[in-house]
């Protein structure tokens, strides 16, 4: 089949404005990943096309992009998910809300700054036992969803509240905080909740659900944010 691939491009060294480049690709397979199409352009047509990618199967979180207007991983969306019939158009642009550096590559530093601000690490001040700390299957299940996060930024950069105000920590950081707040072994929930109860914390979430739709790991992001909001008032999530 044939695909018209439109890519939002920007070369910081050329002194030009961003523009749409178009590539007509023939012999596309319906099961090709969008990443395969981008690679085809980069490897066989124009090596200057720039993007991040690594694992190519939805695990490393490198290649979140805005594909036909929706945030997804380029390696986890197939042509057949986007095009019906023998011809179609696919548009790829960088994720929104972070400064574009070159083509599909954005500056991830603000995203990781927000991540680091919520103490995204396990804290337990007691001396560890000689074997594992015990945790019931029910306790473990309470924070399972958040452990799937691959920090691809698809959620945060789909969030209108984040677009409007980049100082909002954003859904990914809240998911990371949730993962520790609801871990029965962790002892720093109150510090994290203090951060998230501030002006740029969880309350900037307006439950728009873009984050949940965007998550390539199918994490119920909006629900986790709601649970964090509840925890600020001392509520526990239902097991």
């Amino acid at each position, binding site marked *: 089949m044939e695909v018209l691939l439109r890519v939002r491009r920007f070369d910081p060294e050329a002194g030009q404005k961003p523009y749409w480049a178009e590539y007509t690709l023939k012999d596309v397979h319906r099961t090709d990943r969008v990443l395969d199409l981008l690679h085809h352009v980069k490897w*066989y047509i124009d090596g200057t096309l720039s993007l991040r990618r690594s694992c190519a199967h939805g695990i490393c979180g490198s290649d979140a992009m805005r594909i036909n207007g929706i945030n997804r991983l380029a390696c986890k969306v197939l042509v057949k998910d986007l095009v019906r019939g023998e011809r179609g158009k696919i548009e790829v642009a960088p994720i929104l809300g972070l400064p574009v*550096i070159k083509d599909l590559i954005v500056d991830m530093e603000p995203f990781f700054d927000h991540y680091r601000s919520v103490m995204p690490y396990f804290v337990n001040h007691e001396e560890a036992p000689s074997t594992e700390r015990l945790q019931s*299957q029910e306790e473990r299940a309470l924070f399972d969803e958040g452990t799937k996060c691959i920090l691809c930024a698809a959620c945060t950069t789909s969030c209108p509240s984040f677009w409007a105000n980049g100082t909002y920590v954003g859904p990914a950081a809240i998911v990371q905080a949730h993962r520790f707040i609801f871990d029965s072994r962790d002892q720093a929930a109150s510090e994290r909740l203090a951060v998230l109860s501030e002006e740029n914390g969880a309350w900037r979430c307006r439950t728009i659900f873009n984050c949940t739709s965007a998550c390539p790991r199918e994490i119920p992001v909006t629900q986790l944010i709601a649970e964090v909001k509840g925890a600020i008032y001392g509520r526990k999530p239902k097991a």
Partner: protein
Amino acid sequence: MQIHQFDVVIIGAGGAGLMAALYASRGANTAVVSKLYPTRSHTGAAQGGIGAALGNEEEDHWEWHAFDTVKGSDYLADQDAVDILAREAVEVVYELEHLGLPFDRTQDGKIAQRRFGGHTANFGERPVRRACHAADRTGHMILQTLYQQCIKNRVRFFDEFHVVDLVMSDGRPAGVVAVEIRSGEIHVFRAKAIMFATGGWGKVWSITSNAHTLTGDGSAICYRRGIPMEDMEFFQFHPTGIYRLGILITEGVRGEGGILLNGLGERFMERYAPTIKDLASRDVISRAIYLEIREGRGINGKDYVHLDVTPETVNRYLAAAGETRRVDREYIESKVPDILDFCRTYLGIDPITEPMPIQPTAHYAMGGIPTNVDAEVVIDEQNTVLAGLYAAGECACVSVHGANRLGTNSLVDLVVFGRRAGIKMADFARHADFVELPDDPSGEVTAELERLRRADGRTRVAELRDEMQKTMMDHVGVFREASGMQQAIDTIRTLRERYRTDLRVDDRGRIFNHDLLEAWELGCLLDMAEVTAVSALARTESRGGHAREDYPKRDDDQWLRHTLATLKPNGDIALSYKPVVILKYQPKERVY
């Protein structure tokens, strides 16, 4: 050019690099330099589990784990190192749990464990539950946990800095050269202790489970600086990659009861490994799949077989084996969710109701930069230490995996020897001085990068890479023989000549010039491919992952030894050999 100075510089931010950083940073000023953001590292793609004889589910002992590892290695692993691996596995798994790693839990709240290939009770009697896991994203959880703890400990990270050279001064390591990808600027990191933890080079082959970024950079850098590569002929083909895509399907699927079936619907592993069947070592199963396909027993006669984890099939075989355990949809969904997601996304197949089409996929380098058990790089047959240089993880060869790695042991290797590296480097940095940098530490590699940046020949990087991957897949894959390997060597050398004289790079810019860096990575891949094929051609026996049709038997008299392949200044590869450390387990026939 910017110059930085740290006591310890670690290149690579996967499991080995981060574990080393965690320990080194407690006693020394430490930096981690990585071409990716740390959480993109390929440790995150490890699925099924980390092996440790905790005995949470049934009786187990680290000595059994050690025996399985030695047997799995086809007796080529160094048994002193294997003892350390299996013993310290227990400590590090508890340590990971204490650092917050969210393992799955047993009914009584302990770390959950499951069966995995080649892991047995009582020296080969029956499968044992040893693989500690967090669903089928165990590597992801290890990577996340270690990165989180490095943030907590304020480890200094240089993310998206691509290391391209090791600076030597009078034969001593003095630092590394890196390209800051965002600016294209050259940085030199001067350090007392330098550690490579850069992972493998699966991109040498066309069908691989490896990420695009696994191009053997660190190993190639060391190799070019005269450090030998150990046991490069041993590269693991994982039996269950998704057909055509190569994406890994964890052995944990079989650990949970999944069965391999050929085109006739036969559980063919019964014929190849009568005792533990589908849980035999990876090399054994990959060969069995190739043989079934060759005999026309692939699915519909094609070049793949089925892996069936539908509850119906699993329960039928569990019942036939006299086991009381049964599985249902919910259980499979909870234990291998990512596998189900891969199949549903990429194949449109639901493994709950249909079998998965699979074929062997290039997966893991057993060989690499030679080290001792403290991750110090050793450079000759006498294991002479090159002071100040360290390596751990897939890029290194301790050797704990010998000729074939057992499933779960890569993650064990990362954390056990990453930890040892970190401790040793902090200690070294306390006593050692910095080595003087030479006058122009980045001159040589900068000249090569500028050559690549201006390369205006006719051949694209991807064309050369495609040809390399095809020839290595055809001739230096699961089965090998002399003429094919020679052909691969000739092809690789021709490709390298074209790389030198006829390459084309489009991007002349400085900022995020991945076009240039992919060209540089291809140079690493060609080096790794050549040294792999040359080492393989010389070893006239079959052992573990190195299976020769012209020498089908293991030959302990001549070949119970490690290969060392050294690049000579004229470009030739010199082969030498060093003995294997044999302690408790004398080599015997390997039957599963």
